[in-house]
């Protein structure tokens, strides 16, 4: 996706103005398997880069997801409460998790663009083999 940035912990970040929308990548949802529960953060929570935001529970595991940026949570995707499987079905669209009002846009420079992320995934897969 053009204009989308990625983290090593498999979150994507889409920026519009000074608000970033954050979700899990297709690779991440595939690794997790069927997602059954998303522990959502509360609006108003202040996050720093690398903070654990909540947990995602699938039928086989439970993992933390992390904040790629610093800022305040301004919106969360309430639909995930009743339909967590949306992340499996449409990870980069309807499956978004939360939105953050960015404190420091320069931080975005530390994230990967799409081609870097693809390279990163390739490296991960090679290491596994």
């Amino acid at each position, binding site marked *: 996706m053009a204009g989308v940035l990625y983290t090593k912990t498999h979150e994507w970040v889409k920026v519009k103005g000074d608000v970033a929308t954050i979700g899990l990548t297709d690779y991440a949802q595939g690794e997790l398997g069927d997602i059954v529960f998303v522990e959502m953060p509360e609006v108003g929570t202040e996050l720093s880069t690398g903070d654990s935001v909540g*947990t995602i529970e699938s039928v086989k595991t439970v993992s933390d997801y992390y904040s790629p940026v610093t800022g305040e949570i301004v919106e969360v995707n309430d639909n995930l409460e009743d339909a967590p499987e949306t992340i499996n079905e449409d990870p980069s669209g309807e499956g978004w998790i939360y939105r953050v009002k960015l404190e420091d846009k320069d931080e975005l420079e530390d994230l990967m663009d799409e081609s870097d992320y693809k390279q990163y995934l390739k490296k991960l897969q090679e290491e596994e083999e």
Partner: protein
Amino acid sequence: MHFFPHLPENEIKILKELNVQNINELFSDISSQNINPELKIPEGMSELEVDRLLSSKALKNNISNVLSFAGAGIYPHYVPSVIDEISGRGEYYTAYTPYQPEVSQGTLQTIYEFQSYICALTGLDVANASMYDGATALAEACLLALANKKGKKIILSAGVHPEYKKVIQTYLSCTDAEIEEVGLNEHGTTDISKLKTILDKDTAAVVISNPNFFGNIENEYNEFLNLKNEFGFIFIGSVNPVAQFVLKNSKHYGFDVVTGEGQPLGMYQSFGGPCLGFFAASSKYARKMPGRIVGLTTDADGKDCFVLTLQAREQHIRRDKATSNICSNQALCASRATMYMSLLGKTGMQNLAAVNLKKSRRLLSILEKYGFKKVFSAEFFNEFTVSHNQAEDIYNKLLQKDIVLGVKLSDFHGGSYNDKLLVCCTENFLDEDFERLEKSLKEVIK
């Protein structure tokens, strides 16, 4: 791949890594005389000799003539003989949730029914398969609060059982939680105005006991509910299960988590155990609950079946992020409680609670005749605090007559409570018991 931890080459590798020559070096901090000391135990005995020895010791435990009004967390209720009969059956006689649970459908169904009873009893959405005892269940509730809230402060009412407080302190000693206590008012219940002064945004939980340790009913439920709505803490109640049938329930108080001691539901006092902790929460907190949870689902053929559910909460999956390391339950006692509640039914439990109310008031009126005074003005369920200027003397003299007039509060709260006794009365007392008490009091108090 080897699954044995102690292959010789592994040991060598580990010792090398630790930079020690042999395993004994790891124990060098312990003085040698404390390692495998020679035990002073007598020679072996024949079965007959052991039988005689143990029988003679067991005779000293004969309490059949003892009339005890001691409660303080563990109560003298009548245990119907059918409970012993059924719970003693091989199919039920297990201490734990099974480790290959889904093949034990009967055990899982019993636990599921236990959970359903606890939900009905507490008025909350979800209950677990049970815990060790009321104290650890309450401490686990504090862990749940700390896992859900940013705040680090746990406010305990002074009405919480003093031994429960110690267990909570132990549980939280290695966390950064702070425990504060809020005292009681002149009625013997939690002092709401003091509570207001120490509540803040950093408060993760407020913990009360209902009835509280002194027997008093915490009746200001509206005040608690309002404070909870204002400050957003997790409100935890440690309750007496039988009292729930005459008291306002969780909805009125706004409890998020209710725990308690299940011993009154078909367990003997047995000098203090085994006990049974129960734990219920609103569904919002289901994923941070401790212990095992049994769920009802359908199998591949579409038939009902029972499974362990929400296991991603537990430490074998969530590891260090799990809120609790409890991964079993108190299955035998939970089964007994299930049998007890199903035997009595809702009406039976209501009647039981009503008889407890009535008989404990009869006990109070007898004690008042002999100069005892009820210390607190708050209402009580089946236990209350009384004072008498000769309390200690009367207590000791009654003890010689095999009557235990409650517990001495000085044992829990020190010297200023020398004149105070905590006494309880349940359905387990008959006219002849009250008459015996009264006769003995007459002889003792001159």
